[in-house]
């Protein structure tokens, strides 16, 4: 299948529903395995930090959730662009189903950051550029959720959300580079593309495993929610009726 064919096929929610069943389970199984290994490794095997002791271990939840909060938003931005330009049904479903996941990840990153910040910095919350831009991300997610509920007509709601999602992407580089552009209390990035991580392998390997585990969890969550959304929106079509009646399509 060429890329162009794949692109055309994506226009059909029915096709996506038929091929995606196994992907959901595969992502789910991978996520479970990676998260169990990464979490056990990070919490029980990895050495404590020389300054923070054991409280640094919150990094194994904080960093993956913060990365996923931003990745999920980037996916929504891309889906918003596809919806606005190509009017693809599936893009609107991605836009709608990613919001709760991204919102939870952002909230989790903010919460774990506050819990870590109290013993390490001495404050639950500081209004520096990193924490504030992350809070803006949470508000963007809440805004997207509210906007969809507020507009009764599905198509109009989809386009309005797409515009908000696409414009909100501007916030992502601000979050990423806030620690480099301004003086902040939040430290610089742990993982950089151009340098080796500023921690030894026995500390960053479990973190990497957990980041991959979070990505797989996102995959499983997205596929599962998308399949439900397809059934919900296409429930009037012949193929869904047939599927519900017990037939296989």
């Amino acid at each position, binding site marked *: 299948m060429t890329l162009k064919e794949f692109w055309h096929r994506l226009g059909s929610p029915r096709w996506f529903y038929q091929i995606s069943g196994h992907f959901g389970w595969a992502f789910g199984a991978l996520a479970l395995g990676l998260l169990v290994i990464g979490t056990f490794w990070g919490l029980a095997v990895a*050495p404590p930090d020389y*300054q*923070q002791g054991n409280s640094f271990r919150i990094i194994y939840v904080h960093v993956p959730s913060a990365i996923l909060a931003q990745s999920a938003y980037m996916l929504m931005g891309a889906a918003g662009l596809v919806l606005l330009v190509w009017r693809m049904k599936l893009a609107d479903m991605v836009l709608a189903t990613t919001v709760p996941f991204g919102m939870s990840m952002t909230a989790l990153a903010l919460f774990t950051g506050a819990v870590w910040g109290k013993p390490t910095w001495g404050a639950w919350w500081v209004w520096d550029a990193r924490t504030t831009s992350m809070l803006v991300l949470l508000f963007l997610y809440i805004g997207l959720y509210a906007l969809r509920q507020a507009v009764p007509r599905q198509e109009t709601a989809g386009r309005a959300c797409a515009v908000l999602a696409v414009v909100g*992407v*501007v916030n992502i580089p601000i979050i990423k580079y806030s620690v480099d552009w301004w003086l902040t209390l939040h*430290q610089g990035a*742990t993982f950089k593309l151009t340098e080796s991580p500023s921690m030894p392998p026995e500390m960053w390997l479990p973190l990497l495993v957990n980041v991959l585990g979070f990505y797989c969890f996102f995959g499983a969550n997205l596929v599962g929610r998308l399949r439900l959304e397809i059934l919900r929106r296409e429930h009037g079509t012949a193929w869904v009726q047939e599927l519900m009646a017990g037939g296989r399509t």
Partner: protein
Amino acid sequence: MNPKRRNRLLIVLFLVAGSAATLALVLVALNDNLNLFYPPDQVVGGEAPVNTPMRAGGMVLDGSVARADDGLGVTFILTDYQGSAFTVAYSGILPDLFREGQGILVQGKLGADGVFQAREVLAKHDETYMPPELVDIARGGGP
């Protein structure tokens, strides 16, 4: 790509570029206000406001921490190790990570005498993480 889609794509790109440019201008205009704290050279150089609540930051100079004989009073010097340093006076409980050579952020007012009267002291952690035994090796002590 058909002309209709190309037009929509151009509109969306214009929208994103426009909002990015707007935000960039706002951020550049607010640049000084977006920094959470004043570094030592700005405090010493008179760029930081005097007798106004603000935050300043720096590294705790080795050997500069002096505790009062009675009470929780403590003074220390914050430096950037590049020639600028100022004294901080604080009364209260210091965060666990407070130590010499550590990055510290203080909130309070800069007095006219150049001494910073801190109301709150926060520890700034950097992105370096190390197991305790590696620190001993790094300091030449052996494991």
